[in-house]
């Protein structure tokens, strides 16, 4: 990251190769189609590039990336909601919650498993289990306290335990959902 800040292109490329897939999965998992996730990844990197001076060497790097990615995702969601609302009002369509349909095959095992959790619980589980972040790093990325993250993880695990016990998932040969 320090070399990227110093203007080293190979370092920037290596960073994109390393972090890009994680951020792509982060977007893909939330509410977007693959095309949306591709667009969001590009938009996020442009934003990261513009504000790369806000990273201070020595600080954990993943929370910095994820905090910016969350902001881009929220902006995208807000824009999409506004556009959808405008289109609906023009068409005088009935009031239905905004949804972002996924393409066939996009929903993987992890997302199916996390589906019953709240969005904030899914987010912390993804950051911890997919991105491998610690409680402290997740707290930094989500601009919240460690205690609040701990509470979300605790509740998420309680829900997952109940769900997995009900499905008998532990004993499944492939590990996939029935």
């Amino acid at each position, binding site marked *: 990251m320090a070399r990227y*800040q*110093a*203007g080293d*292109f190979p370092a*920037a*490329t290596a960073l*994109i*190769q390393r972090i*890009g*897939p994680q951020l*792509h*999965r982060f977007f*893909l998992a939330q509410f977007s189609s693959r095309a949306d996730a*591709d667009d969001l*990844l*590009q938009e996020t*990197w*442009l934003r990261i*590039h513009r*504000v*790369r*001076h*806000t*990273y*201070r*060497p020595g*600080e*954990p790097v*993943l*929370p*910095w*990336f*994820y*905090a*910016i990615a*969350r*902001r881009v995702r929220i*902006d995208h969601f807000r824009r999409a909601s506004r556009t959808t609302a405008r289109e609906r009002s023009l068409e005088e369509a009935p009031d239905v919650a905004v949804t972002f349909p996924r393409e066939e095959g996009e929903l*993987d*095992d*992890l997302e199916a*498993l996390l589906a019953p959790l709240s969005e904030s619980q899914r987010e912390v589980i993804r950051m911890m*289990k*997919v991105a491998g972040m610690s409680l*402290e790093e997740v*707290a*930094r990325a989500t*601009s*919240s*306290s460690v205690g609040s993250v701990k509470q979300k993880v605790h509740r998420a*695990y309680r829900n*997952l*335990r109940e769900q*997995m*016990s009900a499905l008998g*998932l*532990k004993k499944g040969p492939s*590990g*996939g*959902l029935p």
Partner: protein
Amino acid sequence: MIDEQVDEVLKRVSRTAQEVEPTLLKRVADSIHSSLQPVRPLPPTWVLTGALVLICAAVAVAGAARTGFYGIEKLTVLERLLIFTTLGILAWVVGREFVAELIPGSRHRLSPGALLTIASVALLAVFALLFRNYRTEHFVSAGIACLVTGLLLAIPAALLSWLLMRRGFAVNSVSAGLVGGALAGLCGVTMLELHCANFQALHVLVWHTAVVSVSAAAGALLGWALREVA
């Protein structure tokens, strides 16, 4: 089922992640190539926080110099020590949180709402402890004058704070606005404590403390408006 088993299942299913198109990553790298210049990272948090506190102190003293140091002249040494130490600590804590709001991935010890509550309660406690005159002469007219004076001084404090932190990036502009507004409001209160010689308890408790809340609300509103425009 226990947590370790849940962990194991999560680990197993998270391995099924889909690959990203290599062309997409290459496109991203190419898009930043032309503008890849060396950048200077932001200074450490304590440096920025210190600068923010200095800005607030300088603006408050400048404001009081213009309107008169009538308040501090009437305060006892103990009252001065207690009031200005509290304001200094609060300015440091709120300033530190303002810096955190403008640097992605920073550690947040308190939510903006909790911070505002703590700042208001701390000021109320100190003022309630020190001022025991419960008369309410010219409560509204004198109060509004102090509120307006405090808020007017919060504007230059907020502008200078923004100037210092202009290279930052707010991941949540409403929270950043709220915390920035609270910091500017504390600057307004500091000036009022230097200037205002009206020591009626209710006047200080209601109108002086309100500067922080109103300024924070204005900051949050500004942050919300900027977010909607963007």
